[in-house]
């Protein structure tokens, strides 16, 4: 296990270097820069001043090496958008908000989805199943920003029950959590249902039934445990998605999270912030995959990690 982990961690370093290089090259290859020439072209002197100020007048490889050098010392630079803060301070200010929104969403959506899936599987081909299937298809197919807009129109504009946005108090959490959670909930429900139905046909379930166990007992004790294994594959990647914030939901509901920086850093050519968000995403995704691989060995004894 230790050898396996070590191998994976070394692999991760490679991933990071690759990601940083690709990201750095790509972001510098987009035209434009952290200056505005919308009115008219900047006089050369003014343009040169701006490039010098941001250190963009040096060759690209020097810029990259300098960046990586500072990054290794924990210095990710100063965001062009928020020059009064370092990139880390900006992330430190906004990420907890996204984490909280994502966390609330996971806590609400996943158990609810699994529950919905179980009910649908047990009551297979009844109206309950159809309703559950309909709800989850809706959740999967309608993008979260459409759901967000519906919620906004209904609860804020029409009914005046909830504020249109912001992030102060539970009243402002409701709509973003629903908008963000419907998709993952549906996903959990769909996979729980199909996986449970498959497991229910297995021989050991018949055995459990033959032993005289009650229906609930069979499902809770025997079926569910195995049915949930595939969910790790499916739901694992939802975690980094949710905790890094989503641009649409955060923007629509004025949630001051990290989500918008993923996009705004690109169109504002905020290179330090862009690099930091890329690396953060790389870190989260790779750890999530690593964790779900390890989790497999815990829940499914058939899985062995090489090197064990």
């Amino acid at each position: 296990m230790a050898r396996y982990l070590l191998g994976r961690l070394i692999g991760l370093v490679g991933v990071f270097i690759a990601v940083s290089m690709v990201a750095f090259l790509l972001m510098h290859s987009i035209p434009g820069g952290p200056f505005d020439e919308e009115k008219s072209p900047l006089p050369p002197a003014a343009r040169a001043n701006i490039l010098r100020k941001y250190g963009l007048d040096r060759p690209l490889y020097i810029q990259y090496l300098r960046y990586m050098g500072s990054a290794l010392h924990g210095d990710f630079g100063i965001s062009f958008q928020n020059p009064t803060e370092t990139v880390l301070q900006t992330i430190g200010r906004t990420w907890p908000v996204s984490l909280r929104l994502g966390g609330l969403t996971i806590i609400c959506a996943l158990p609810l989805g699994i529950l919905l899936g179980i009910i649908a599987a047990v009551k297979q081909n009844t109206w309950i199943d159809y309703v559950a299937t309909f709800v989850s298809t809706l959740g999967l197919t309608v993008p979260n920003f459409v759901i967000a807009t519906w919620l906004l129109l209904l609860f804020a504009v029409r009914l005046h029950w909830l504020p249109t946005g912001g992030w102060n108090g539970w009243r402002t959490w409701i709509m973003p959590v629903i908008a963000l959670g419907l998709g993952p909930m549906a996903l959990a429900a769909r996979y729980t249902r199909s996986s449970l139905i498959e497991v229910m046909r297995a021989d050991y379930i018949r055995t459990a039934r033959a032993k005289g166990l009650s229906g609930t007992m069979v499902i809770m004790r025997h079926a569910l445990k195995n049915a949930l294994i595939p969910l790790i594959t499916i739901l694992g990647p939802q975690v980094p998605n949710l905790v890094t914030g989503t641009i649409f939901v955060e923007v629509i509901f004025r949630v001051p999270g990290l989500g918008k920086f993923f996009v705004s850093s690109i169109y504002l050519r905020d290179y330090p912030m862009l690099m930091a968000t890329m690396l953060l995403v790389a870190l989260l995704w790779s750890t999530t995959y690593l964790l779900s691989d390890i989790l497999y060995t815990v829940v499914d004894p058939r899985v062995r990690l090489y090197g064990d």
Partner: protein
Amino acid sequence: MIRHRIWSATALLVVFTLFLSACGGTAPAVPSASNTTPQAAPATAEATQAAAAAATQAPAATEAPAATQAPAATSAATQAPAATQASAATSAATQASGAAPAAVQLPADAAPREQQVYVAHYDNTSDFTTIDFFESVYKRGGAITELLSDSLVRLDKNFKINPGAATKWESDSTGLIWTFHLDPNLVWTDGTPVTADDYVATFRYGADPKHAWDFTWFFNGVIKNWDDAVAGKKPLTDLGFKAVDAHTLQVETQTPAPYLPAMMLYSNPMQKKALEAHGGLYNSDPATSVSSGPFILQEWKKGERLVYVANPKYGGTNKPLIQKVIDIGAAPSTDFAAYQSNEIDFMSGPNLSPADNTIVSSDQDLQKEYHPHYGDFRTDYLFFDVQNPPFNNLKVRQAFSHVIDRDGLIKSIIKPTQGIPAYSFLMPGFPAANSEGLKGIQNYDPAAAQKLLADAGFPGGKGFPKITLWLRNEAPVRQALAQAIAASIKQNLGIDVDVSNKENKTFTDAMNAKPTQIQFGMVSYGMDYLDPANMLGVFKGGGRHNWNNKEFDDLYNKASSFAGDPATRVKMFQDAEKLLVSDVGSVFIYHRTPGDLYRPYLKGTELEPDQNGKAAQHWPGFTTYSQLVGSMYVSKDVTTYRKSIPQ
């Protein structure tokens, strides 16, 4: 399987990276360029002429320096302090006595002081770094800014230039040296007086190569030694700004610049002391912020909200009735929902989607709250790479100019409330505009267009290359406009046109590249200050486009620095514009006439109809550049909308 996953993770990351980069082009709620320029306003030909005239008046006098008289506002107010003119009245009184500012009297129909709160949204998806013009112009997030000090002059609803921090100004006989006399009642919140040194320090900061200000081009060729100072070739102390004494500022220009007072709208100073102690971002934190303007910074939560409260020590002439300004960070697409939910008092009209506009026009109350105006005199136009075939042929350009049915496009796509047809560049109401006189040159005439194209060697479009019309991150309505233009070109001229809506900076970079990378594009321009020199400057040789016309440049340069009779100057600009239109440096499509939504409880003399009968929050909106700050208040009707006082 496990090893496989590492690779799939890597692959995913790369794909994700690519996706993020690609997102730049389709990112939602990308702020448009126009959003960073203030909102809007109506004007009449007379009003703006008056402004231009006022600016040109002084240099015309050759003998003694002619002082530009302070317009009637303050003196009239002292005479008849009507309830609604309370602010002007008090400030006039303050000025007269030179004593500490008195408490502002609210008009009779005003809501109580604690209700004098003004709430609006700013675009928190755009770059919002500073609330100081001289720190950055394009990184102010379209927020309510420039409330912390007074510029030398300010505008009223008729675009007339009124005294601001300068009580009066004059130029010498050469027209090169301008003297601004500062209001001695202005003090910073730390108790020190506002002096000419603060202005000098601010302009030096603007030119400082280390600061790399994004608006240095504005003063290029105008202020003495500005260009050289920006390029680092001359010390900042050589700049044409001088403090003659504590309250006298002298400005020296490179050539006579009759429009200088108009330009000095952008002269709100930063405090020299704070600049030296904390640098240009001292107003980012209430702890280091210092104000001599009508408001002080109370709170700034980045990305979330910005709160100002009225400055009790304010000694100037733009004393606010509004006691608190709350500016909330939000994506522009969410403004309408917040407005309908009574969370904001004002929303910028251009942020209304076509669907929102339909709701507004079908709702009687909302219709009354919609106030159309002239915006920043913005014109949308087509441009060409005129240095290369096929657009180096005038006949081709003329053919293009004759196939656009502006009236039809306005009626079916833009909507008459949102724009008027343009056959020339300067919008009616802007100084030197000559819309009627130039209307016939680029008129809609498909038959003439077909003939011109045939004469150019492309009968029926035969042999004409397929072209792409580039757009700069345009809103859906102008994407539709471009599609209609492309269809019209295809239908009338038989030329295939693709429309491609590009990401903002990608477009701008390609447009500004020398040689330009855009063969055929559509873009807009809106003014920075009220003088034809500003708008027409966009077509100067070596500027935004590669339509280079020596005759135009000569006329433009001569007119710009012409210090004689204003009418002659106007005529010179009109001749220049005629050249631009006849030589089809551009095909003009429409002038935008945006509007804003605001609740009927926002009142004040500046919100009452202007000379043209338009009642609106005039450009430049709620900022010390405008008298709106000293005029607008919340009336008692507010209680039917707000359930509680916004915090």
